């Protein structure tokens, strides 16, 4: 009967972000919020574990005030309760601050057998949260997991790495980061969507976490974010004769020293 906690991030949908052509700055004014893609897999995995083994799933998220918009979405996908920290510090928070805040909150919330995260967030993809949490909490960390099972205290995971697949076992508590291939998150039924408003959520205030001011000060700061625009020659050969096009291409490739 594992007690699971899933940490998720409320991000902007990168598909809605536009690049301003004049100065390549990013316009996210029309970007809608979403639960980061890999975190969805983490929530689903926790929900599946609990459906199989009993137990409970809580969700935890640290973000700006907008994090409140994520609660019903998260609660419709399996967790029984959502904890949230909505604080201005999240705007500039780097992976270090995020881990400090989450770890402090986890210490306050109580004992969990499994703490799950996505392998990285869909916006910044730092891929640091799970190992950082493990270090701060003193738990082992199983990262890049594509298969997970629980038997009492024992957690067995399969990790998929570049050149091998590794099976590992550990006794809970443990921090786990999951790959997107671990599951396909189910679409909640309307009953679950409407039921989410009846589930409890609780605000955790940063001031109550016992953090020092330097814990909330980011060590990594993003400067000069610019849209990436492909600068290519865009020469297109579209004569009616394929042979003509190929002849022209051959000349171009030769000029590039490629043939």
């Amino acid at each position, binding site marked *: 009967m594992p007690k699971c906690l899933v940490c998720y991030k409320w991000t902007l949908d990168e598909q809605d*972000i536009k690049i301003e052509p004049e100065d390549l700055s990013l316009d996210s004014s029309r970007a809608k919020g979403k639960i980061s893609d890999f975190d969805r897999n983490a929530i689903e995995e926790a929900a599946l574990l609990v459906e199989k083994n009993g137990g409970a799933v809580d969700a935890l998220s640290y973000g700006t005030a907008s994090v409140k918009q994520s609660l019903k979405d998260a609660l419709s996908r399996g967790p029984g309760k959502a904890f949230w920290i909505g604080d201005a510090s999240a705007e500039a928070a780097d992976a270090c601050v995020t881990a400090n805040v989450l770890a402090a909150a986890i210490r306050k919330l109580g004992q969990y057998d499994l703490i799950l995260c996505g392998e990285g967030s869909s916006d910044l993809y730092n891929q640091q949260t799970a*190992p950082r949490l493990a270090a701060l909490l003193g738990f082992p960390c199983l990262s890049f997991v594509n298969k997970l099972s629980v038997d009492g205290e024992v957690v067995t995971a399969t990790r998929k790495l570049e050149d091998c697949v590794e099976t*590992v*076992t550990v006794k809970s508590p443990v921090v786990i980061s999951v790959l997107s291939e671990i599951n396909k998150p189910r679409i909640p039924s309307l009953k679950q969507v409407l039921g989410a408003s009846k589930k409890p959520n609780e605000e955790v205030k940063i001031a109550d976490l016992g953090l020092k001011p330097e814990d909330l000060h980011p*060590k990594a700061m993003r400067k000069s*974010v610019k849209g990436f625009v492909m600068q*290519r020659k*865009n020469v297109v050969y579209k004569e009616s004769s394929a042979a003509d096009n190929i002849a022209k291409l051959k000349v171009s490739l030769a000029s590039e020293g490629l*043939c």
Partner: protein
Amino acid sequence: MAGIFVFSEDCALAGQLLTPALDLKKSLAQPVIAIALNEADAKVLASLGADKVVVLAGKWVEGLADAIYSQAKTAEASVLLVGGTLRGKHVAAYVAAKLNAGMTTDAKALRIEVGKLLASRVLYAGLAVCEEEVTLPAVATIRARTFLPPPAAATVGVIETAVVESDTRVTIGEVTSTSSEGIDITTANKLVAVGRGFREKEDLKLAEELGAVLKAEVACTRGVAEDYHWLPIERYIGISGQTVKPELYVAVGVSGQVQHMVGCRESKVIVAVNNDERSPIFEAADYGIVGDLYEVLPLLTAALGN
């Protein structure tokens, strides 16, 4: 603080990390200390410019994180460069947390400016690029082939061994190797990428023949590998596949969506063959031919074969 640390469980990658490390050494005037998993690797790194190499032996790479942290802490490291494999990222983030340090993931370029580490990296699934400024001590992961290894050093570094207390909490069970035919498309100098413009698996032969005259490997888009299973997953280029930067990338029957292009957009020259002139690939290419690949490829192969 004194020490620019370098670590990767992949010795070749560790060697490549010495290049930015030695560069940072010029700004910071601190020794370069490499962590190696065995004597043989240590000797290689010592000869490539590491001032000191510490050998930490252990069965599970991730289990060495505490030991690596100890080394970095004792030396009061200012920078830790870690190879950006999945194992490396796990270790790097763990060590960063213990050092209470900031970390930048998949840095493409590094320098010291006003006493901070400045790194360039990619955001929003390839949509944007940014510069990230990290206070020291700083950790950075760097992916393979971002840098070339440095030339052999004039002096050979010192090698020492440290005792490691293994992390007994995690039991490693079966480890199954997954590297297939051994073709690593990320090292290929030229690539021919196939997309859904091909109708049958047998038709890929046209791409293989073009590859043969170009001396290029064949790669593909996600659909060809994951949906059609015409090529193994290791040949798939894209946001959740491989990233490549060959001299020449020829995209045939590929529409050019950003999720694919982000994996190849650093190629020196991109060529596209597609029968739809509205296809986004032409905006992402240097040269393109609008035409039926079934007609164009054999003619192109013949023309370049001379």
